């Protein structure tokens, strides 16, 4: 398993196995192995229980939700009715929310990564006046909580007539100071200046060099920045909450909260909420499990080389 996940040649675990000796010593201690694995199983239960619960809850009617034990299925198995209700309620607004989230996260993530790469690369590979000022400003941006800028950004966007539009969520998502920071570090250590020089001698323009050499070499870091930004946008709640008042523009987080907040007056929304949570968690869970192997490459490089 480790071998397939690994992007680096050797891991500690592989190392142990390859060297033979110590691995065998440890394998000779089944007690340790059982204890360690036991701990990990307990922790895994902790991480999985809420997810398991929502699977069970989504299969229940509101009556059963309150009337039967939460860890086991109810009297009527209503999963498919509930999911159908989620997908059709309000003219399929749930699907629209999902689509919006994909739009915000996908477009935002792609452009943000490209812009951060260009900026980080420029700062790392060129010496120019203002270099340090720009870097200092952006570093400050990493430390400023995103939510602290959301309110003033709303006032600003209101003046510009951008509030409550797709742009109001998309534009702030295009900027990733952390990605910029990471790209600068990565470009600094991995993009070889002599390679750039060679390209120049071949007559390549500076932008061409960036697009053909820089971006390619920086790919591992870019994947990390991209994933980081996608998850950041997907999970964002405060910014869309402040910016959007039109339900049609909602991302999934706001939409589900919208349903959840109706439950205290209209209990039938419990079914929609649990079903909606399940539907939105499943793709994310699969994505996380698949993506976690890509996750580390760039970040490790960045953190190690920093």
């Amino acid at each position, binding site marked *: 398993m480790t071998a397939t996940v690994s992007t680096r040649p050797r891991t*500690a675990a592989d190392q142990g196995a390859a060297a033979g000796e110590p691995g065998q010593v440890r394998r000779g201690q089944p007690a340790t192995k059982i204890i360690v694995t036991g701990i990990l199983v307990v922790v895994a239960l902790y991480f999985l229980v*809420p997810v398991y619960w929502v699977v069970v809850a989504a299969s229940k009617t509101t009556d059963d939700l309150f009337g039967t034990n939460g860890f086991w299925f109810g009297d009527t198995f209503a999963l498919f009715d509930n999911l159908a209700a989620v997908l059709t309620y309000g003219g399929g607004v749930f699907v629209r929310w999902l689509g919006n989230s994909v739009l915000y996260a996908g477009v935002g993530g792609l452009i943000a990564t490209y812009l951060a790469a260009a900026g980080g690369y*420029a700062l790392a590979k060129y*010496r120019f006046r203002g270099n340090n000022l720009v870097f200092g400003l952006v570093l400050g941006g990493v430390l400023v909580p995103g*939510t602290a800028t959301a*309110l003033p950004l709303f006032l*600003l966007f209101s003046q510009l007539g951008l509030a409550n539009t797709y742009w109001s969520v998309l534009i702030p998502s295009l900027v990733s100071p952390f990605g910029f920071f990471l790209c600068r570090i990565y470009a600094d250590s991995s993009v070889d200046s*002599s390679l750039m020089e060679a390209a120049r001698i071949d007559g390549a323009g500076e932008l061409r060099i960036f697009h053909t050499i820089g971006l390619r070499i920086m790919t591992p870091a870019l994947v990390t920045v991209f994933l980081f930004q996608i998850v950041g946008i997907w999970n964002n709640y405060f910014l869309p909450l402040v910016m959007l008042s039109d339900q049609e523009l909602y991302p999934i987080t706001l939409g589900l909260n919208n349903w959840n907040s109706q439950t205290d007056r209209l209990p039938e929304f419990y079914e929609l909420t649990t079903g909606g949570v399940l539907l939105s968690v499943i793709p*994310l869970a699969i994505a996380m499990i698949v993506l976690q192997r890509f996750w580390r490459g760039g970040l490790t490089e960045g953190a190690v080389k920093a």
Partner: protein
Amino acid sequence: MTTQTARTPGPAGGPTTGAAATRSAARPRKRGAVDRAPWILVSPFLALFLLTFILPILVAIVQSFTKVTRAGLFGEEGVTSTFAWFENYRLVLEDGNFVASIWRMLLFGIVQVPVMIVAATVLALLLESASARWPGFFRATFFLPYGIPGVIATILWSFLYVPGLSPIIDVSEMLFGYTPDFLGAGTVLWSIANIVTWTYAGYNMLIIVAQLKAIPSELYEAARVDGAGPWRTATSIQLPLIRPALVLTTVFSIIGTLQLFAEPQLLKSVSPAIDSQYTPNLSAYTTAFAYNDYNLAAAQSVLIALVAFALSFLFLRLTNRSSR
């Protein structure tokens, strides 16, 4: 971040800039293009950065020094905006609830951040030790919650906290005859901490795992030759070498703590203990959109940013000093 730059061989990519200097001296005719290139590359990012970070901060500062007064019963006889000096800041700092919310977040951070980072580190070390079976499965499982937005995680957990719905409470009553109160005045902060830990522990673990995997195998070899057990290996090799990852995750966790918003805002509807100013962000949001006092809210936003900045800076300074 200072820690990390201090470890780089040279500032701003030492050898690179040297090379650039010789190159531009040798090839004067391309100098213009080389001078222009970085600005072309950096300007789209910079423009958006100015628009979405610098300008809002300026707007917030301007607003936070403005005061709006109204004449008549509802302001129907005129509304005036005046320069307020530090009046808004004074009001914010005099507001016991807002100050309390900052202290609450500090308490939260002091407990939750170390717990989470320690847990993430332990999990990472266990996963990377040869004693763990199925490390890939566990790694994926622990990481999974990171993909679940805070809002959805909170909806999930709130169902597990609410009496009457929560199977956890039912089970506890059945087995121990004890009814836990997850939403009471003394406990709800830690119920929130649980949600945050649940969401981010796996993510932090993954960063640490990545760093662990980068430790050169020769070091393990050497430790083994010295007869170091797993414990010695962990404390004297692994922990010191994953320091940058620990610093990184801690700084992000500190910033995250001050941003806490979705969790308390959602739990508010099921927990009477959470008030409208439970966290600094909730406070600013309430002030702006429930009380319509954008000026006070701006002052609160500025203060939140300052505190986050100061804390991150302080932490970086501390880690920087102790590493020397």
